[in-house]
Structures are given as structure tokens and as C-alpha cells.
């Protein structure tokens, strides 16, 4: 399963970030580059974290946030819903049931968004590597910016990864989220391999990619076509004249 799904080296993004990034239309002029630079600078200094505490790793977060290490010093603060958050921090093993919710939450986050896999479990399954009910590599299903190795990583390691992420954002290199739009078919294929052909989330990623100009060669494909047959928002369970859909079509033109 994992082989033919084209698994990636977790460190690949970190080493060669430029490979999946082309210049946006908005970054062409010098003025817009300045703005973009300023925005990246601010993004790096203000990170709202959605803690998806799946396993034992959650216990390392209170010291990271509270008076011992105080992550607010560098602008990292916890947030409650995926809509508000920038970072999805997945702390521990991801069971299949959990993965569905992780994907839903990830898709409900608004770009630029970053995923940090915390602990060995998210890298290779860790001590759950031979479990039938957990996934082994998180980045097959959602694009992950950084991993923290260890079982379990200490708060210092969590801090280090936040600082590294900030450096990446500041340099405009934390772009795994673009990969999800550009290669959605690939991620969807892996998700469908687990959950079956009827798998879909409430979020219409392809429409989003079109709307925001984030389409890539792998955005659509055989697997996204399955969505049209199964997703609620593509079926007549939401009627055609639903105004929000009409508005999407307008903005595409």
C-alpha cells in the first residue's frame, strides 16, 4: 500500500523546498514581493496551533506553553478550532478513525497552514508499527512540513521544531500546504486506499484550488473524479442553485 502510493522522504521537503514551488502571479512585481516578504515575516511570528492530541504526546505540550518554556515569547499560542489555526500539531499515533478527523480538520484549516508530526508514531508508526488500526506515515495522507522524532520528544524538541518552522516560513519555504492542492489526487488516492472509494470530506479541495489559483498538475485525476460521484456537495443533496456554489462559479470566470 505504502509503496505504490509513492511515499516521500519526510526530510525531502526540508531539503529541497523549491521543487514544489512556482512563483505566484501576485509575487511578480517588486512591490508585491515586498508585501509578500512582510507577510511571511509576520506569519512566522504569529503561529496559532491546533493541538490534535491523539496519544500520549499531549503531556509534553503544557510545559511548552506554560511558564517553564513559554512559547508565547515567540508568538506561538494555542487555538481552539481549525479555522483559526495555522499549525496542526499531531501528537502521537493516528488510528484510522482518527485519521478521518485529522484530514477533516486539516482541510478546514486555512492556508498557509503547516503540519507538524510529533513523535515516532507519525513518522513510521513507532511502537504501533504492526497495528492493523493505525497508519504508519502521516505524510502520505496530509502534507507534513516537519516531524519531531523521538518517543517521546521533550519540550525542548517541540520548541526547536517551532523555531525551525518559523525560519522556514520566514524564508518562504514552508510550502507543504501548496503540495496538498497541487497533488491532491495523490493524497486522495492514499486516503481512498484506506477508506474506500466513497471517502470524502465536507471540503471541496479542487474547487478551492481553482478559486485561489492553486491548481497543479496533480490536483485532479482519477481519484478526484470519484468524489463527484460520492461527495455530498457534488450530489443533488445540496441543490444546484445553492447560492454559495453559484458564487464560486462566478469568481472562476
Amino acid at each position, binding site marked *: 500500500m505504502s509503496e505504490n502510493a509513492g511515499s516521500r522522504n519526510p526530510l525531502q521537503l526540508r531539503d529541497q523546498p523549491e521543487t514544489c514551488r512556482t512563483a505566484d502571479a501576485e509575487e511578480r512585481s517588486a512591490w508585491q514581493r515586498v508585501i509578500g516578504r*512582510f*507577510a511571511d515575516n*509576520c*506569519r512566522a*511570528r*504569529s503561529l496559532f496551533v491546533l493541538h490534535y492530541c491523539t496519544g500520549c504526546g499531549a503531556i509534553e505540550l503544557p510545559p511548552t506553553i*506554560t*511558564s517553564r518554556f*513559554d512559547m*508565547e*515569547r*515567540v*508568538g506561538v*499560542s494555542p487555538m*481552539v*478550532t481549525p*479555522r*483559526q489555526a*495555522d499549525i496542526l500539531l499531531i501528537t502521537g499515533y493516528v488510528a484510522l478513525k482518527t485519521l478521518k478527523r485529522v484530514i477533516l480538520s486539516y482541510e*478546514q484549516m*486555512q*492556508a*498557509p497552514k503547516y503540519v507538524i508530526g510529533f513523535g515516532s508514531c507519525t513518522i513510521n508508526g513507532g511502537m504501533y508499527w504492526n497495528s492493523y488500526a493505525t497508519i504508519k506515515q502521516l505524510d502520505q495522507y496530509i502534507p507534513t512540513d516537519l516531524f519531531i522524532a523521538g518517543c517521546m520528544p521533550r519540550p525542548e524538541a517541540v520548541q526547536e521544531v517551532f523555531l525551525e518552522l518559523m525560519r522556514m516560513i520566514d524564508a518562504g519555504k514552508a510550502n507543504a500546504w501548496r503540495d496538498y492542492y497541487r497533488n491532491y489526487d495523490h493524497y486522495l488516492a492514499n486516503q481512498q486506499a484506506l477508506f474506500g472509494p466513497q471517502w470524502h470530506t465536507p471540503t471541496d479541495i479542487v474547487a*478551492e484550488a481553482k478559486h*485561489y489559483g*492553486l491548481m497543479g498538475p496533480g490536483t485532479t485525476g482519477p481519484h478526484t473524479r470519484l468524489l463527484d460521484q460520492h461527495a455530498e456537495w457534488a450530489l443533488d443533496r445540496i441543490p444546484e442553485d445553492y*447560492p*454559495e456554489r453559484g458564487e464560486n462559479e462566478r469568481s472562476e470566470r
Partner: protein
Amino acid sequence: MTLSLLAELIVMPLIAFVVGLALVLMMRRVRARIERRIGPPLLQPVYDIVKLYAKRTQVSHGIMHDLAIVMLLGGITTSVCFLPVPGLEGLARQGDLLTLVYLMMVPMLGLALGVGSCANPNGSIGISRALTAMLAYDVPFVFVVIGLAVAYGTTSLPEIIAHQQSGGIATWGAAEMPLLAIAGFIAMHAMLGKEPFEIYVAPAEIATGPMAEMSGKYMGALFVMQSFQLYTIGALYVTMFLGGGENWLTFLMKLFAVVFVSVALTNVYGRYKTDKVIRFMWTWPTGIALAGLALVMMH
């Protein structure tokens, strides 16, 4: 005349925004210090807002969701224009204290409509609680406003300030009407929506209520609103009870002092239940305000 007024209408919201950002920073720093942390860097409120406005994808739940944000930003900046500050009177003579009190409800209404159109029950519950809290804290606040209006014989804010500044600290509202000042302070504190009256945010219960579905610039507008709110509520209290500002230095000192006391108190409380908020606000502050009003009426 018209030009200078227009300039004031531009400058007043800007000042309010900048001071409000500083107040937000102070609030977060004070909280951090009480928790023995260091707290966010100087420009953290700016980073947050710029980051939110620079989001690449943002979720809207229909046109009303967008218009609500516009209404919210418009309402909160309008109310700032009716709040006189040293040297800048703005529109304070075109409306009065009563107008200001009602204008301050317009952004609330905008927020409520936007949150409602998100179709998220967490948000609706949050608004239900926020409006309930408003009903709770506005009862003592109403008595405070009435007491003030009766005592000064006017509801015009510039005249209220002029009266208080006529004789130094002895003619401050807080010195002349200490009971109303106390009740007013509790009501103001509840208006800020911080603990123990933080029922409508309640992150652990209703996922930050009204903010649950807010992303990017929507959330950014709420951050802007928060800074304006800290400014407006603090400045209104200073105007009503602490003699307004003779100059910017004293005005800002008073403003920061009021908000400091409030945010410092916040950190030692947990969160009341909704009905507990109502019961509290309708007993102690209302009782104190009524006693203050009775004293004022006797004079």
C-alpha cells in the same frame, strides 16, 4: 472647520487602534507575568493581525458573513468618533452618552448576525450567551449612566468632562460618586468579556463561541475589534469617572491604569456560569448602582 473635523474622524480611529493594540499587548503581558511567563514580544498584536489578513484562503459562509464584518468594523470605529479625547472632540456634540451607549451595541449586532450566518451552533450559543451577558451587565450600567446624567444634568460628553475637570481630582466622577464608580467599574469589566464573565468565549465549552468559524481576515477583524473595544470601554470609563484627559499624557495614564486593573483582576478568576453572571450582575453591582443613584437623587 469641516476639514479639521474630517481630519479628526480619520485620526480618532487611528489613535484608538494604536492605543488599543498597546492595550492588547499589555493585557497579554500582564497575564503572562501573573502566570510567571515572559509574554509576547512588543509587536505581537500587529503580527497577529497582519498574519490573519495575509491568509491565502479564507472561509466565508455567505454574503451576510462578509457584511457583518464590515458592519462590525464600521460600528466600532463610529463609536470611537463620538468619544471625545484630549484635543479631539470629533462628533461628540452631534450625539451624546445615550447615543454612544447604543452605538456600542451596533458592532455587537454585526458580530451576532455574522456568527449566525455561519450556521455553527457553537457560535449561536456564544451569541446567546453574549447577549445574555449584555442584559446582565447593562442593568447596573444603565443605573450608572442615569446617575451620571442626573448628577451632571446633561448627557453631553464634552460637558461631562468639562464639569469633572473644573476642580481637579475633587470633582472627578469617581470622587463625587464613588458608589456609581464602583458599580460602573464592575459593569465595564463585564463588558470586556474577560473572566469571570467570559461565558461567551468559553474555549473549553463552546470552542470560542462566536469565533469558531472565523478564519483569516474575519478573525483579523475580531482582533481589531478587541483592541478597539479595550480602548473604547476604558476611555468611556475614564470619561465618565476619571475626569477625561486634560492632555494625552494623563489620558493615556488613566486609560492604561483602568484597563490594567481590569485585566489584572481577570487572571485571578475562573469562569462563572451564565445564570451566575446574571445573578451576580443583578445583585451586587446593581445594588451598589441603585444606592449611588439614590445618593445622587438626594442632592
